[in-house]
Structures are given as structure tokens and as C-alpha cells.
């Protein structure tokens, strides 16, 4: 589905990602874990071509999309939920969600509000509220709901659990798994919450200061406790 090879990413002159390779198979669920500031968000933004300057190649179903602008990548079916959520404050929750119709991949109908509420019961009572008038946790739900509303092929989630109460994080596990099962969506998740990452994905990459330090299944990850020690302990 997505094949990232030899990506180097830069902000101005600072070199953030160094020759990163990531493979996200069709219907695969992959986590990228790492400490603060190691380049997780930069990786997702590089995949969307939204921000950092990048070198290297991003392939989509075998075809290079390295030169496509972000909005065209969105229209291919890539949806990024950024870490800062970025809900439009002047639009209602429903309007925020409706905006994703711009990214609807060729002819596939977007979800109706009812269908979406089926996945995220939490957003039902706030649909007509303005984006600026909902809580941080609600914003996170809306951000995910808005990303999946038009049935993307790949969901890129950037630290979705940040700032959520434990009970809501458990709820989010069910939401994310439910959506990926129902829509056959692939998932690339950046997280610091190992528990959440383990629950929602099959494979894991560990990233440290812009380089991939480990990749494998969660069982393999557990078999090497020193990886956690070396690259994730704070």
C-alpha cells in the first residue's frame, strides 16, 4: 500500500529524518513508537508532503507519488489526523466532517452522519456545535471521525491518545479497530502509548533521533527488552 524508502526530511537546515524506510502493507496496521522529538510527526507529514522538505521516495500501490501535493495525496485516500487536531473553530462539527468530502476517493460515497455516529457515539450530541466550543477530548474524536468520514484507504494517526482520559483511550481502541475492520482501512499510527499501539496494530517500528532502530512484530519487540530500554525509556 505505502512504501517509504530512503526518506530524509528537513526543517530549514536541520536534518530530522535519516534514510527512513517504512512499509505499510495493504490492510496492514503498523505502529511507529519513539520518544518526544525523534521525528514521528515529521514522518507522517513527509508521507503527506505537508510541511518538511523531503528527499527519498514515497510509493502508493507501487507508483511513486513523491511529487504529488498534499491535497492530491488526500484524494488518493490518505488521511492524516495531525497531533494538534486542527479542528476548524468557525465551522460546526458537522461542517468540519463534511469538509472531508473534498478528499472522497473516486466515486465512493462518504459516510452519512448516522453511520459516523455509529462508529463514534460520542460525537452525536455535539454535531451542531462550533469547533471552538468542544473539549480537547471531543476534538480528538471529531478529528478521527472527520478523517474516516470519506472512507480513506490509509489512516495516519498522530498520537491520538494524547490528552485523553484512560476510559476514552480504551473506547478509542474499539473505535479504531472497528473502523479498520469495517472499511478495510490500513493504519499507520504514531504513538508514545505502547499499550494503545499494541492493541491497535500488528507490527511496530521504533524510531530514535530520526532513524529506524527496530522493526518487527510485537512479539519480537517483547523478545528484545533492551530495545525498550535503549530507545523508549525516558
Amino acid at each position, binding site marked *: 500500500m505505502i512504501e517509504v524508502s530512503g526518506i530524509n526530511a528537513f526543517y530549514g537546515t536541520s536534518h530530522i529524518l535519516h534514510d527512513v524506510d517504512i512499509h505499510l502493507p495493504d490492510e496492514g496496521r503498523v505502529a511507529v513508537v519513539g520518544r518526544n522529538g525523534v521525528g514521528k510527526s515529521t514522518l507522517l507529514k513527509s508521507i503527506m508532503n505537508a510541511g518538511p522538505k523531503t528527499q527519498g521516495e514515497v510509493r502508493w500501490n507501487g507508483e511513486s507519488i513523491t511529487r504529488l501535493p498534499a491535497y492530491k495525496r488526500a484524494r488518493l485516500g490518505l488521511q492524516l489526523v495531525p497531533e494538534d487536531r*486542527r479542528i*476548524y473553530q468557525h465551522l460546526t462539527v458537522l461542517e468540519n466532517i463534511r*469538509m*472531508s468530502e473534498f*478528499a472522497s476517493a473516486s466515486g465512493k460515497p462518504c459516510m452519512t452522519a448516522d453511520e459516523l455516529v455509529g462508529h463514534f457515539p460520542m460525537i452525536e450530541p455535539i454535531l451542531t456545535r462550533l469547533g471552538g466550543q468542544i473539549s480537547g477530548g471531543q476534538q480528538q474524536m471529531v478529528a478521527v471521525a472527520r478523517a474516516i468520514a470519506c472512507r480513506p484507504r490509509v489512516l495516519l494517526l498522530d498520537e491520538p491518545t494524547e490528552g485523553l482520559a484512560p476510559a476514552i483511550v480504551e473506547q478509542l481502541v474499539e473505535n479504531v479497530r472497528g473502523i479498520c475492520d469495517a472499511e478495510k482501512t490500513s493504519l499507520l499510527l504514531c504513538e508514545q502509548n505502547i499499550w494503545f499501539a499494541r492493541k491497535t496494530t500488528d507490527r511496530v517500528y521504533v524510531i530514535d533521533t530520526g532513524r529506524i532502530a527496530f522493526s518487527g512484530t510485537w512479539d519480537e519487540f517483547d523478545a528484545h527488552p533492551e530495545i525498550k530500554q535503549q530507545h523508549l525509556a525516558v
Partner: protein
Amino acid sequence: MLFAIINSLTTGMAVFLVAAGLTLIYGVMRILNFAHGAFFMVGAYLVSSMVGQAPPSTLALAAAAILAAFIVGLFGLVVQRVVLKRVQDADEHYMLIATFAVMLICVGVVKLIWGLEFLSVSPPPGLEGGNMLGPVFVPTFSIFVIVCGVLAFLLLELLLQRSWAGKMLTAMSRDRLMAQLMGLNVPVWMMVAVGCSFALAGLAGGLLLPNQTLSPVLGDQFLLMSFATIIVGGLGSIRGAFLAAILLGLIDGFNAIAFPNIPGVGIYIGLVFFLLVRPNGILGEEQI
């Protein structure tokens, strides 16, 4: 007194018509477009060529102004494609220099086509003269300008706040990155915004043509006033520009009565005052 207020409002609304497009393009592209006044002037010249020095009717004037808006809007698309698009990701200074260059070119072309001499156009028959409102004489053309300004304001507000396209334009101006992530064809929406901004300049040029002395420096006069207006109003805010236009109009009117030998100074004193009190403008936080 009433006469002074009506005069001030006329000035204010005339400036608002020009400033609206200037603040719109700032809201969406974050550029201060020095060429805006020049294109306002192009609109005025275009209309003068269409209707002559004595417009046959109000309708003809309005139709010509709309046509000029359309033409100047197309110029806007060209400027966007050829100039602004190339510098939009560069440093702000490049943007300023680029729009300044566009202004110089534009003024040069105006001189080549329409010459240097002053031209004046009288109001069409329907807008000539005036009425007595109690003891004061109110020129019909003043009423026309005020009505145009208020209508333009209401229409812009309605479009930007209520229509889906307006909401998307606002969304793009507030968070361009997210708009792209949602699949919005940002370059096309930029074109739309720039086209609208230039069209507003052209429209204003046409509507305000009568009673103006048309010369290649017309753009500069309005550009300065418009910049003052959008700075006082809060860059990017249509509502702010509207309020600021009225305020600065009133200040200018008061200036003309109280200190008739130093016209135009009041605006700058007002500008300095507002910058000290509200450096982000009256409605600085609230962008289009």
C-alpha cells in the same frame, strides 16, 4: 454637522470599497498587495473608456463597473499565476517587492494607454444633483457611494459567513495546511480568492469613477487610505475594515472642518493612535 457626517461616510464607504479587496487578499494569502490601488485605477480607466466622460445612465455605469470588475479579476488570475504563486512560499519581503513591482508595471501601462493628462467624469443623470435633507444639501452621488459600500459589506459578510464556498475560503485562510490535508484544491481556491480581490478593486474603481479626477496617481491616494483602514481594522478582517473605514472617514471629515489648512493629517494621527491602543487592529483576532 449632518453635512459633514454624510461627507465622512461617503469617504469612508469609498475607501471601504477599495479596502475590502485588500483585506480579503491579505486574509487568504497573507500578502499586502501594493498593486491593489493600481488595479483600482485600472478599473476606473476601463469604465471611463466604456462610458465616456458623461455616463448615459446609472445602469450603464454599474454595468461598466461590473464588466471592469470581471476584467480586472482576470488580470488578478494572471498576476497570481505569473507572480504571486512563485513567491508565496518565500519570505514576506519578496512578496512585498513583487507586488510593488506589479504596481509599477501597472501604473506604467496605464500611462502608456491613457496618457498623463487629467480626466474627469461626471455622474450619470440619475446620480447628479442632490436633495435637501432638512437644511442640508445631500448629493445623490454620496448616497449612491454609501449604499454601494454598505451593500458590498453585507454581501461579502453573507458570502463569507454563510455560504459553503465562503466557509471553505475562510477555512483555507485560517489553516491552509489542514485544508490541504482535507483534500481542498488549495491552488484553485487561491486563484478564486485573488480573482475576487482584484475584481473588488476593479468594481470599486468603476463605481467611484464619477467626481474623481482620473490620473495615474489615483491609485496611490486610495492605496494609502486603504492600507490605513485595514491596519486599523485588523488585517484580514472585512468587518474590521468596514468599521475602520467609517471611523477614519469621520476623523477625516472632522479634520476638514476643524483644520481645513492641513487636510488628510487626521487619518495618520488616527492610525498612530489606533496602532498604539490596538496594535492588532480593532478586530485583529477575527480574520475573514
